[in-house]
């Protein structure tokens, strides 16, 4: 599962097994954008990294108007599209940001499910977290069956792990990709099974 973020041979069957919607979560400057770029190179993708939540909503609201769908839509720093203050003002609610997140995720999910009736179409989101879990994990889990998290060890090495949440039906062992960043390049140091790390 973690292999799809690193260099793979063309037509690698691993890429075909990806869930329709995936979240990549990690602390600042851990190489998330580089991981997304690598994922994009491995599939025909549409990359979105700028705008506000209204723009993203409009994109997925009109998604069915496309003649052909991209193999993957990648949204970098998904959480940044939702400004706390403007969401609170728009909805007149202190939980305005969460409301906006729920509505947009539901729209994304509906758009991708519709697109998949014609052919494979995946959505990959990234989000920056400053702790152990994405800030809005309880919301993300409702619509996103596959969540990868990145953790750093403080010495420039990071671990990318697939998280298996109850209810998504997966019972495979967890593979962890260990990588480092130098001169803005990702270096894959190895892929191990979770049990081997203990």
């Amino acid at each position, binding site marked *: 599962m973690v292999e799809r973020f690193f260099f793979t041979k063309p037509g690698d069957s691993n890429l075909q097994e990806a869930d329709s919607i995936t979240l990549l979560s990690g602390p600042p400057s851990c190489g998330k954008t580089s991981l997304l770029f690598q994922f994009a190179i491995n599939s025909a993708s549409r990359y979105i990294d700028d705008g506000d939540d209204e723009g993203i*909503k*409009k994109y*997925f*609201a*009109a998604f*069915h*108007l496309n003649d052909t769908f991209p193999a993957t839509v990648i949204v970098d720093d998904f959480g940044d599209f939702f400004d706390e203050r403007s969401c609170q003002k728009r909805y007149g609610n202190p*939980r305005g940001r*969460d*409301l906006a997140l*729920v*509505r947009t995720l*539901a*729209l994304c*999910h*509906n*758009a991708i499910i*519709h697109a998949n*009736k014609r052919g494979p179409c995946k959505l990959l989101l990234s989000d920056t977290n400053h702790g152990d879990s994405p800030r809005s994990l*309880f*919301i993300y889990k*409702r*619509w996103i069956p596959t969540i990868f998290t990145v953790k750093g060890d403080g010495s420039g090495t990071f671990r990318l792990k697939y998280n298996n949440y109850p*209810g998504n*039906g997966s019972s495979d062992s967890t593979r962890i990709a260990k990588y480092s960043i130098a001169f803005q390049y990702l270096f894959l140091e190895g892929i191990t099974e979770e049990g081997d790390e203990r």
Partner: protein
Amino acid sequence: MSASHLVAESVWKTIESTHSVNEEQLSVLHFLFGKNFERATRIVDQRGVKKIIGEPSGRSILQVVGESRRKEEYLCFGENYCACYSFFYDIINRGEQLCCKHQLAARLAESLGACVEVKVSDEQLAVLLSEL
């Protein structure tokens, strides 16, 4: 998936395959979803579920009438989303309940083939969805 969810899915699929519902199925759904299911059946009986279908894409969204006197309409994506506050506060925020009454009404109406179908252009559907 929780046991309740799996049981509900099994009942929904049977209703979908026959486009009809019997007393036993109603009883199971009432047991699983409580008062919300009662309210949902009332909404369906009053033909309060509209399926808005974009042409030619076929993408669709459901619109469910609320039970209040104001007769608000809520947009639903089946079991994945409803625009009402109950969906957000009870289901997403607190993790209580499986579905709001509008989602249940939408699922019941779809399974029975009891939705009022409205066809719109794909552009009109895009505008509707952008106002979610």
